[in-house]
């Protein structure tokens, strides 16, 4: 009997520990959304973001009421900040899908701590991205013309245009990201429902209860849920490839030197993941201090992300190199000129920023010490964000400013409305992200629990 009791005790101890571990995860994540008063830093950040967003709204107001002549691209550099920002934002979105889908398929369990916020970031970034081509059309209220529908003019969208591909790719991406994000959140919303119900807050319990669709966490439900989640991840992976590839087709299907090159699709995808990771950690490094999530978003996770940035940064560097090599190898004088012009032409400084931020800066991640120092990572991530913005600018502006004919040559300078809109999308992005961080389950609670060693407690080996 006594030996049986001892076994029982150790069993209870193990069970108790496991329970405590699960409860701790729930508590630590829910704490963020349940705190009665938001953190001061959160309020300050939200205020700043809203102000920035207001600047953007004003810029949009001026733009829509006056016309896109208020932007600086009313010369031959007809795609300038707007398309640069579009590509930049879309690229940032890609890390979210990559973290949630590709790392899921490749069983990188470290993703569970960051996937939810990365997915949210994807959605917000795609929203910001979508604004730019929409506004660049000049009459955004006719955007619905891009949806094939029977109409009095007997016209249909021109599906052979890469710009139409963009419409389909970006809207599919947006839809898929939202569904994926939401589906992942359902079990956690159920957690919120139960917590508010236990506290007697009926209104919140009903809201979260409806949002979680009445999730019960039954094994039969989990079975289909996991299968569908896996398949969604499998679908999102080629989708994420296709979206930035399609964005790159906007350029690469043309004949403009510097745009028309076959490496563009994978090169854009690598760049997108690169910038996306930089953005995720620009956001999460402060957030894990602010919301006390350091034991969930662990140093190892940040380190793994640094390695991915190093890898994708090197891929981008490889693409720069092969572009240069092939520009020379092709023997095409226009190609050759374009690349010399990038490095030494009037936009040389943008090229300099691009190479140093995208290729040289991530090389610092070779060192473990760098990968373990959050403040350094934060600064490097900021630099990478800047560098990736300049990469898109270099591709777009330098090629347009020095096209085939010298009579097309010009220089691009942004106006205050260009800047205002860009700043405004930053404001929108941060506003949405801060709201998300306050009201939604910012960490995938059920997935974190499933990845704990305690998830296997009591199993017979």
């Amino acid at each position, binding site marked *: 009997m006594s030996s049986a009791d001892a076994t029982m005790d150790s069993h209870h101890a193990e069970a108790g520990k496991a329970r405590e571990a699960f409860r701790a995860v729930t508590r630590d994540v829910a704490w963020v959304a349940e705190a009665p008063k938001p953190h001061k830093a959160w309020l300050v950040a939200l205020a700043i973001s809203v102000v920035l967003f207001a600047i953007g709204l004003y810029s949009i107001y001026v733009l829509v009421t006056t016309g896109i002549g208020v932007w600086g691209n009313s010369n031959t550099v007809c795609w300038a900040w707007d398309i640069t920002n579009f590509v930049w934002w879309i690229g940032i979105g890609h890390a979210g899908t990559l973290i949630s889908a590709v790392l899921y398929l490749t069983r990188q369990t470290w993703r569970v701590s960051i996937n939810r916020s990365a997915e949210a970031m994807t959605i917000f970034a795609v929203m910001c991205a979508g604004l730019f081509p929409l506004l660049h059309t000049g009459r955004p209220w006719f955007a619905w013309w891009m949806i094939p529908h029977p109409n009095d003019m007997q016209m249909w969208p021109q599906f052979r245009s890469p710009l139409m591909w963009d419409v389909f790719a970006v809207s599919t991406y947006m839809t898929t990201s939202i569904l994926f994000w939401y589906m992942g959140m359902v079990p956690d919303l159920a957690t919120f429902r139960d917590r508010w119900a236990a506290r007697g807050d009926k209104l919140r319990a009903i809201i979260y209860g409806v949002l979680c669709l009445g999730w019960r966490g039954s094994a039969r439900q989990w079975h289909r849920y996991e299968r569908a989640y896996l398949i969604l991840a499998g679908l999102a992976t080629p989708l994420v490839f296709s979206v930035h590839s399609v964005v790159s087709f906007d350029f690469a299907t043309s004949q403009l030197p510097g745009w028309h090159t076959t490496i563009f699709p994978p090169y854009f995808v690598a760049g997108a993941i690169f910038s996306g990771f930089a953005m995720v950690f620009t956001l999460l490094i402060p957030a894990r201090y602010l919301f006390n999530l350091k034991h969930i978003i662990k140093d190892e996770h940040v380190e793994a992300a640094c390695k991915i940035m190093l890898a994708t940064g*090197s891929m981008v560097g490889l693409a720069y190199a092969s572009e240069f090599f092939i520009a020379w190898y*092709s023997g095409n004088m226009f190609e050759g000129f374009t690349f010399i012009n990038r490095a030494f032409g009037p936009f040389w400084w943008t090229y300099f920023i691009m190479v140093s931020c995208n290729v040289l800066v991530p090389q610092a991640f070779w060192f473990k010490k760098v990968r373990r120092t959050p403040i350094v990572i934060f600064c490097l991530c900021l630099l990478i964000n800047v560098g990736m913005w300049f990469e898109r600018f270099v591709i777009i502006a330098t090629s347009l400013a020095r096209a085939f004919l010298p009579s097309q040559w010009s220089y691009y300078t942004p106006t205050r409305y260009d800047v205002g809109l860009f700043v405004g999308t930053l404001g929108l992005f941060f506003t949405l992200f801060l709201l998300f961080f306050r009201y939604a389950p910012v960490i995938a609670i059920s997935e974190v629990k499933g990845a704990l060693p305690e998830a296997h407690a009591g199993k017979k080996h």
Partner: protein
Amino acid sequence: MSVLQKSLHPDEKYKAGKLGQGLSRIGAGIAAVFFAISILLVVFSDTDTARNAGHVDAAGEPAKWARFLYDYVIGWSFIFSICVGVFWLILLHHLVRGRWATVVRRIAEAMTLAFPWVFVAGLGFVIPLVAGYDNLYYWAHPDAGHCLEKLASGACHEYLNPTLVHKLGWLSPGFFAVRYVIYAVVFSAMAAYFARKSRQQDESGDPKLSESMRVASGPAMVVYSLVTCLAAFDILMSMAPKWYSTIYGVAFWGSACVGGFSALGLIVLGIQRTGRLTHSVTPEHYHDIGKWMFSFTFFWAYTAFSQFMLQWYGNLPEETVWYKYRLFGEWQWVSIAILVGFWAFPFVFLMSRWTKRIVPSLVFFAVWQLVFHWLELYWNVMPSYDWATQAHDGARLSAGPLTGNIAYHHVGFSPLDITVWFALIGVLLFGIGRNLRGNLIPVKDPTLGLSLAHENL
């Protein structure tokens, strides 16, 4: 995502024993037989094919070895790409602290240790090139710097071929050979490093060795990507020396990984058939190999489509010419076969979980993908075999690959295409067999337990 561990089954036979010797003997036998057949085929071949394709030597005689050497480049690229694909798995496995592949890693290492043998075999086309054989790579031909244009009067006008002259320094037999040696040294050394460390761990069981391989895999991956891209540019893309595509190296790598994972699956299975590793390698591992085959089938299609669609859309003559000779005439049927056989068919079927887990079906698709991987290389190289020639002041001057009338541009399939390919497969098997020694499993790898217990969701 299980953290369950398993230990090696007590009855497991994980020693190579005589396996390597046997395999290397089989490989050497295959290579010897098929090389002999190939040489006989060349010696007794009629010379019209070579002459019609514009391959003549300095004396004006048909260069009958040209077809053999083209096939040699294709077959060599095939075995080289398999090693390249498998090596990527090793690098990735270390880089991301992979788990599932630990049980098959030793076999993968043996495959990459074949690199030196592969590169020695490659001398079969590099030495003739350096020795002045000018009917393989057009850029090595004395006519390469020139172009012929037929004037309205019927006379020919010769002019400089500027886009080619421009790079004849890079694409010269000497410099090519130097780069070839660099690729050989880099690949062989990197493969040897990872294999040696891995074997050291069998002795000592030191987990630090895993760590040092992980650290090394980062820079190795960078070097690997660079060298793979450049090798693809040099050996395959320069077959049509005026044509260029920046994605070419990546597309080659995608195809190489399809071949690599298929070959890995087949070899692991072959080893299991000898009664070894029967407890360790389970359908779970085949499932993962199948997943990678599927992923790279998709990835290859993605790169190939990107390359094609962008050049088709841009419609620049210097780019579309490469596709023009592949999408019309006889070659269009090969293109369609590749589209359906290398992508559509395996893509649809490998999607299913069961195709990857049921061993006979995986074997079918592995063999299938290897055949189509070869066909894809064939499709990349062989259209360059036809060098239209034009009369010029009484002498014939070759116009180079991708010139002339498409109607006269034949696939010209010959038995040599198959025999040379098989001979080189023999070389690869020989190289692998030489390295199948000792343990077939990294017995003291810290992740082995996880790998043995690996389960797919």
